[in-house]
């Protein structure tokens, strides 16, 4: 596998820790970058603010929480999917909400997939592992780079 980077936007420290641990099992964790709110996620994608000098192009997938400070996941999704240069980057919503209106809203704005965080620890780890395998190893990401 080549350098396939995953961007995680997650403000909950416990969910972050579990997600990283699950990805680590498949040696994906060294290619994971974590941001902690929507504003930071956008700064990362647009290489601005503290990410002005970052290198490495676009992530192969963005794992996006919804309820985050400053800018919500839904707002981040809308901005990414409305931008011709960014819209092809796969965005997987990773959220605790299983409410139909949320599902509809995210799919409507172009979410590539929608995963509800399992409450059970073992189920959570398994879901992240399976998500990580598919998006980091099986899926062929778009070729675009900033």
């Amino acid at each position, binding site marked *: 596998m080549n350098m396939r980077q995953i961007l995680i936007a997650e403000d909950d420290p416990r969910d972050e820790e579990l997600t990283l641990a699950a990805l680590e099992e498949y040696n994906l964790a060294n290619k994971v970058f974590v941001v902690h709110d929507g504003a930071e996620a956008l700064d990362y994608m647009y290489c601005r603010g503290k990410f002005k000098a970052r290198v490495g192009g676009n992530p192969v997938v963005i794992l996006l929480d919804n309820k985050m400070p400053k800018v919500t996941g839904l707002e981040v999704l809308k901005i990414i999917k409305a931008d011709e240069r960014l819209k*092809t980057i*796969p965005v997987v919503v990773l959220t605790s909400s*299983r409410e*139909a209106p949320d*599902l*509809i809203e995210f*799919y*409507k704005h*172009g979410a*590539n*997939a*929608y*995963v*509800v965080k*399992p409450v*059970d620890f073992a*189920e959570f780890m398994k*879901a992240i592992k*399976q*998500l990580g*395998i*598919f*998006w980091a*190893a*099986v*899926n*062929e990401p*778009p*070729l675009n780079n900033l």
Partner: protein
Amino acid sequence: MKSMHLKPKTILLVEDDPNDEEMTVAALKKEGLAGDVIVVRDGAEALDFLYRRAGFASRDGGPPAVMLLDIKMPKVDGLEVLRQIKSDPHLKAMPVVMLTSSEESSDLAECYQLGVNAYVVKPVRLNEFIKAVHDLGIFWGVVNHPPPAGIQTGA
């Protein structure tokens, strides 16, 4: 996959190659998903299924949880099927995953431009093919939450 929250869902496989169809269904069967796999063999049939036309006029159920779509097929190819789905407000939220032998960057770029949810290149080696379909089936058939049936997501 015995969690009550993670039930297998309906998968629509659009594939004209009998060998690939057989391998794909076999790989999904390992996950207990095969009972929920519907196979159609060209793009026209896929659209008939989704729009409940012709032989599918009286079928039950809404759209599948995911559609696995080959590109090179008779009558209507996968790119055209994808284009129609993603430009239809009633269907565009349905996840579509390309499952193709094409590694052409033009196909990859066009599919993502049209709004494909994921793009999987069929591995040539049998065991890798089975593994890829297995991982794909787990993610899209079990882990992912598809949009609620019957919704309209058009802007």
